[in-house]
């Protein structure tokens, strides 16, 4: 059987990658590079970063800030209140109504575990 090299990036390169992440702020890279075991939650959360991002330090309206590192319970509470129509919003009430509560929970949990 062919010996296949396990092709991880060279360690030095990886450290540089992580250093860049910390320097520039992971929000500008979307979902941070370090892997999360729960890839389904990662995939669902990835649908949020088109809008919720921190683009190159430019001023971001409160409603569209990056979500990495948010407090899980606070985020979930907000999402559920959007869904119930209790918090005013332009799109979030409508979007959250398309998600199950458990899915919102998984997404909030995922973001809470990401480095801001």
């Amino acid at each position: 059987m062919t010996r296949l090299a396990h092709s991880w990036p060279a360690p030095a390169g990886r450290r540089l990658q992580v250093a860049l992440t910390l320097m520039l702020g992971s929000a500008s890279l979307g979902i941070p590079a370090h892997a999360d075991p729960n890839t389904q939650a990662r995939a669902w959360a990835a649908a949020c970063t088109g809008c919720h991002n921190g683009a190159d330090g430019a001023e971001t309206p409160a409603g569209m800030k990056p979500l990495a590192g948010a407090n899980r319970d606070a985020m979930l509470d907000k999402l559920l209140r959007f869904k119930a129509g209790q918090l005013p919003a332009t799109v979030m009430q409508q979007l959250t109504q398309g998600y199950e509560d458990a899915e919102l929970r998984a997404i909030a949990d995922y973001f809470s575990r990401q480095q801001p």
Partner: protein
Amino acid sequence: MSRRHFLHTALGLGGLATLPAWSGIARPGPARVVVVGGGYGGATAAKYLRLWSDHGIEVTLVEPSAALVSCPLSNLVLGGSQTLADITLGYDALVARHGVRLIRDRVSALEPERRRVRLGSGDTLAYDRLVLAPGVDLIWDELPGMARPGAHDAVLHAWKAGPQTAALRAQLQAMPDGGICAITVPRLPYRCPPGPYERACQVAHYFARHKPRSKVLVLDANADVTSKGALFKQVWAERYPGIVEYRPRHAVLDVDAATRRVQFEFEPELQADVLNLIPPMRAGQLAVQAGLATHQGRWCEVDFLSFESSVASGIHILGDAIQSAPGMPKSGHMANQQAKVCAAAIVAALAGQDINPQPLYNNACYSFVSDRDAMHVVSVHRYDAARKTMTASPLGLSSAPSELEGRHALTWARHIWSDTLG
């Protein structure tokens, strides 16, 4: 699952179980994915393939243009509140930050039996998985008048942002007051359903300020406005009365580019001073040529769990080129969402892991009705395992356009550019 044109001896998933992560299949070294097309879909796919494999997968992005000129927001260039430079984005971060290998060239042919693509330069690129995000091709052969010499300089589509956007803006600026700008809309499906109507608002906004006796005629092949219809009609009536006129059921039969006369099947011919002809579309030529556009010869059917082609194993197709699921529009936002699902599936497959059986994502689409005010439509899309397609939630719409939503829309653009390319 329909017949597979492209048969491979490799690549059963079971065969991967014993191989280390990110391995190429028949050769030593990291897995290689080639992504064709550097738009919202392709660029996002390239980035997330790198990100989610911890840079374990080698990703090569093939794109002929030096920069991505965003179709979203390009209508604001026509209205005058943005410039082409404002919406032109580079690929530098994809290369420097994410280690995507960028080749500035076209793909001239697929060689699926050999798992490689041939570039315009003559070189070939081998792959373990191929991602095609070729966008749309505009169909001209049903309009004999557009085959005449000079037609494409006189009659612009500006449906691929770039030089045509600037040229159409120049045509509008050169048009005398009291002139007519006609915008033709093809039958669904086409790239960006609300786009032509947003364009009508932008041109009307420009006319209202600078050429108030001019008119915008929206000549729609469809039976009604295809997106945010009630909202657009209200905007036209309230903000641009006497400027925008909407005519449904006007399918273009042919044009005379020199005189900018348009012929319809049932309606009387008319002449415009500026004719913006948006023709019918199909998947990008590369996909059509390769036999991947299996739906009515126009759109590529895919597996919505991975965006793998229904007829070609190992080839994934995403963005405007696919046969969309019901309720799924063709848009940059959608392509960005699809690309992440595709990237996750490829990363999982190459690592011998399970693909997410429940893709779940959304669409958010803003239309600018003036230089500052915008409105939205949103929907949520989830996988239906029984019918093997994505189902769409009911639409969420703005109650009215607003300046707040205009600010959100500009922020959305900056953020999705960062998500796609940064």
